[in-house]
């Protein structure tokens, strides 16, 4: 792992004093939180990602769209350490090489992921789901003697309020509706206090009203967090209002505002077929 020390010369948003970076800490000196360059991944000859390059700025809310098989989920797998790229670079901030970190290490560094299918702990209560996700020392020895402090309880209840599940706090998570499960998983992400959130089809199966509220939540999170949202629902992407990246056959086809992207002839061709 890089132990290079960087002096922050430019304003890093937080302070103008020169700060020495500790190893493993996120370095946002160049305002870029995620940097993918020429990433290729192939499975048995099938190129899931083909020289994919993408940068996400700190605080950005980016939507990623693309037809099935465009490589959206594989891209998230690479970022979270589940899949190793055959070639290419993946950096979190300036210094953290994602291709050399394990999944839990990446999670600790500050990348949270929501899966396409809601994966929550169905046998645990809603409260416990959030408790387990909470940012804290997650080693065995600490968990053996862990006790929630008042402050930590407050953090769980704040999140419960945010995802509107206060009334369900003590119910087993498996009994929630599909939309509520999606919200719970988003809540678990928030408990991790990630810097970058990867959200794979977060509004699938939600009612229109829930979708609307989700968009509001994401917009309110941007700035403090960076978000990458994979979604098919165009009205939802529109509600997010950020930049849009179109993936096709494992690489970036177009990038820009939703209106610009929707008028791109190549994008139209990909979506409507030849």
């Amino acid at each position: 792992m890089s132990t290079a020390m960087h002096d922050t010369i430019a304003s890093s948003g937080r302070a103008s004093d020169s700060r020495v970076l500790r190893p493993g800490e996120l370095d946002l000196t160049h305002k870029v939180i995620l940097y993918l360059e020429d990433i290729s991944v192939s499975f048995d000859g099938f190129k899931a990602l083909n020289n994919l390059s993408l940068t996400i700025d700190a605080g950005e809310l980016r939507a990623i769209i693309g037809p099935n098989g465009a490589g959206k989920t594989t891209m998230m797998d690479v970022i979270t350490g589940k899949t190793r790229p055959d070639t290419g670079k993946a950096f979190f901030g300036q210094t953290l090489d994602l291709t050399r970190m394990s999944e839990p290490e990446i999670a600790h560094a500050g990348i949270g992921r929501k899966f396409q299918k809601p994966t929550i702990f169905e046998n645990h209560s809603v409260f416990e789901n959030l408790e387990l996700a909470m940012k804290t020392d997650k080693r065995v020895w600490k968990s053996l003697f862990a006790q929630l402090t008042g402050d930590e309880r407050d953090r769980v209840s704040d999140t419960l309020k945010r995802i509107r599940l206060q009334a369900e706090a003590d119910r087993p998570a498996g009994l929630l509706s599909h939309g509520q499960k999606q919200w719970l998983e988003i809540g678990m992400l928030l408990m991790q206090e990630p810097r970058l959130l990867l959200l794979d089809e977060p509004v699938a199966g939600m009612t229109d009203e829930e979708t609307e509220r989700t968009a509001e939540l994401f917009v309110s999170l941007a700035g403090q967090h960076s978000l990458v949202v994979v979604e098919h629902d165009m009205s939802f992407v529109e509600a997010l209002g950020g930049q849009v990246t179109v993936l096709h056959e494992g690489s970036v086809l177009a990038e820009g505002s939703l209106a610009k992207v929707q008028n791109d002839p190549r994008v139209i061709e990909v979506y409507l077929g030849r």
Partner: protein
Amino acid sequence: MRTPLTVRLFQSLPRTAWLALAIFAAIAWIAIPAAHLLLPESSALHVSAYTVTLMGKILCYAVVAVAMDLIWGYAGILSLGHGVFFALGGYAFGMYLMRQIGTDGSYGVMLPDFMVFLDWKELPWFWIGSDSFLWALFLVVAVPGLLAFVFGWFAFRSRIKGVYFSIITQALTYATMLLFFRNETGFGGNNGFTDFKRILGYDITSPQMRLVLFGLSAALLIAVLILGRYLVTSKFGRVLAAIRDAESRVRFIGYQPTQYKLAMWTLSAVLCALAGALYVPQVGIINPSEMSPANSIEIAVWVAVGGRGTLIGGVIGAFIVNLAKSFFTVSFPDYWLFFLGFLFIGVTLFLPDGVVGLWRKLRARRPAAPAPTGTAPAVATEQPAADTPPPAASTQGARA
């Protein structure tokens, strides 16, 4: 504000559970010793030596079942090789028991009989220190613990799961059994260790020693139940259950599942080993057949019969199956294996949650039933809050 550990340990069990444990302790430490030593054999309440030994033996099995439930019920890892840890604990303590025989063996020399028989002139290096009680206790914990740790390290790191893991554990116990069958291995070959005379210089066959071993087995079971209950209600236990249900999610929120599994796996093995060390002086023999794959499968049957993920289910299952076993092997020796097979199939088909599950279902069906003071919900999904009421009833019933 942090609550001290002792208080948290106390709080991790419901009040009825403490009451049940207290009743159990009173029976094991006062009632049974009194009935064994003080009452004449003609009395209807007299507890025979055979019964004390049988109960002591089953208490050791119950400890193994609880250890099995910790790893299977709460972490979702089905081990079909737990017998190896039980047997190794027994062998480690058996070495000490062999050395305690001294010159009272058939050949009248300090060397254990089987070594004289093999024409060995001195103790192999790994027997050094085996005459020390403390060293034996250390080996009881260290050898099975180390084996479990190394085995688990490789298996969990390679993300071996489910039925593959179960099969490898079968292979582990089978391979170890073959190793111990060899005379050259230095543990008595297929005869194993037997003809024990003393522990710490005291006669191993005396009624007092029998009761001490029985009482220690009961104490171990109580300790393991309390410890287990603390573990499964702690955050550690919640993380393990989460690994059981959705391992990849656990990894993505920043836990290392390998370490959690390894910790519980090794602890479970050590608990089995302690039970094995108490079992051997009570039954008076240890040989490689304890490591046969069928024995390990039987451990899983106990837990399945009693109810997985309940802790107390293991105790109930161990008592039901083993009492049935001692009845059948005496009265209908040919039918025991048929019965065991039927039991397993029947439980799988009709009682997926075991006896404890059945009991909870019955209790849930009677809403007007007078709830014992301070008990939690009758239907517990993941964390059985009220799982302990049945123990007293069942263990007492088994003994009566």
